[in-house]
């Protein structure tokens, strides 16, 4: 598994007396679509925060494309090619939908401050390019026509889509989706599934997602990790996971 895109080895994260994640071993290969499931408080979002540099692991090693990313700041990890969405939507709510996406192009804009202030050099051509690419992304996510709307005024489902569009604008290799279907109705969830499949192919992405909606997880993930109380209790294909007694116990309770 040395060619894994993202790999975590024996990662633990301790908050005071609480072990949020313990001895977490994980890998995702290029092009894979993997799910991370588990009851509330199992440590799924903590794992995301470890992968994106929001938290630093107490022990263990995390590598991305072969290089260690432990100790890097979130923006450096983003620049290396990991993008994410948030469980509790974190859009730039007072800014326009278009500006939300434009900001995410930040690391790919090739003009300096002086060029911007003096309106010289590559400023105009680069701004034009960013604008064009932003609009293209918004079209993909059916947000065209709402470019000038403030992000906070979008309906919930559209805000979720905008978060994904914004994450894609950073041009990631690996996309981490934190409960993308939360609050969506079955119809919207189905559309989201199609969209995730499509962007994966279109952008050549590797995708890791956290989700509680089992129809989505079982429907699109190729491999699933199940966390409970910070430990991995199962790993395998959707079929294997469905039959795993540990998983059934964790989700339904009982003696298992």
């Amino acid at each position: 598994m040395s060619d894994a895109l993202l790999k975590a080895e024996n990662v633990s994260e301790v908050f005071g007396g609480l072990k949020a994640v313990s001895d977490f071993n994980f890998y995702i290969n290029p092009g894979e679509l993997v799910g991370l499931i588990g009851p509330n408080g199992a440590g799924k979002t903590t794992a995301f925060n470890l992968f994106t540099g929001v938290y630093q692991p107490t022990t263990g090693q995390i590598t991305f494309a072969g290089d260690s990313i432990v100790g890097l700041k979130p923006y450096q990890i983003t620049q290396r090619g990991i993008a994410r969405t948030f469980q509790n939507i974190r859009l730039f709510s007072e800014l326009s939908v278009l500006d939300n996406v434009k900001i995410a192009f930040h690391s790919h804009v090739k003009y300096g401050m002086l060029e911007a202030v003096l309106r010289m050099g590559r400023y105009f051509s680069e701004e034009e390019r960013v604008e064009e690419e932003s609009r293209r992304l918004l079209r993909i996510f059916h947000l065209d026509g709402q470019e000038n709307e403030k992000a906070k005024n979008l309906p919930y489902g559209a805000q979720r889509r905008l978060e994904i569009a914004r994450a894609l604008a950073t041009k990631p290799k690996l996309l981490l989706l934190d409960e993308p279907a939360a609050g969506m109705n079955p119809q919207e969830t189905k559309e989201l599934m199609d969209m995730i499949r499509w962007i994966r192919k279109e952008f050549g992405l590797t995708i890791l997602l956290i989700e509680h909606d089992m129809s989505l997880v079982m429907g699109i993930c190729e491999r699933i990790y199940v966390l409970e109380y910070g430990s991995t209790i199962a790993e395998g294909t959707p079929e294997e996971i469905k039959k795993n007694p540990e998983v059934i116990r964790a989700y339904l309770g009982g003696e298992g």
Partner: protein
Amino acid sequence: MKYLRKNDLIMLGLGLVIFAVLQTLITERIMSSFWQLNSIIIGINVIMAVSLNLINGYTGQFSLGHAGFMAVGAYVGVVLTTFFHLPFAVALLAGGAAAGFLGFLVGIPTLRLRGDYLAIATLGMSEIIRISIMNIDYVGGAAGFKGIPHHTTFAWVFFIMLFSLFFIKNFVNSTDGRACLAIRENEVAAESMGVNTTKYKVMAFTIGAAFAGVAGGLFAHSFYLISPNSFTFMQSFNYLIMVVLGGLGSITGSIAGAFVVTFISAALASWPEFRMIIYALALILLMFYRPQGLFGYMEITDYGPFRKLLKKGGRKHE
């Protein structure tokens, strides 16, 4: 995008027309000397307000130390012109650079703080600057610095103000400006979109401080004497009032805020004790009826007639 270039030219032309009108009023002595001085003060206040807005309104970092940076620019400037007889432009630039450098130094540790804590830290910093100046006999200490050459003219103030406005407008409408806006809106999300939040917070702080320093130089050279008491925290509050009144995150707002506040304080010059009451009332009314300020997050060019006139490109696209 090519409209942007055209818009800049229209704005520049408009600026020149306004300058020509006001300068004629001054040279023909139609404007009284009281209002001449006030037109200079307004220009300086616009620079102060718009640079503070970059820190408070656009980047969302609550700074209360703007008068401190102004003091640094003022004192560096007057020392260079009075003691070393250097040209005015050099003194202004050096004052701006000194204030900017100080902003950079202070910014690195303090910008780890958020909200109220940052406000208190910057307030403390500006008081430290003021009290340090008070204790330096070389610049006159508490008695003030006397014998400053009168270099500041309306033209100097106006063109530096115009430059500041263009600089900050262009900065805000670039990827660096968007990074600052992102920090204001949501720091965690900004960081995960690839924005180095520390760098941009320090950058906004440094640029804001540098412009405050230049404004300080202009301010000092319009009087015979300056004293540390011209740069108390009340002065910082004054600039904050301009920014909040005009609207956070709006350049038009900063200009309007600087105008309104300077007019009120000039009109009430004979009753200084009423000034704070009027400010307070104005702010309370504003918070009730228009909490985002006169132009919250909007520019005058975002409104109907101007949009048509300029075929608005830029931040809000048709």
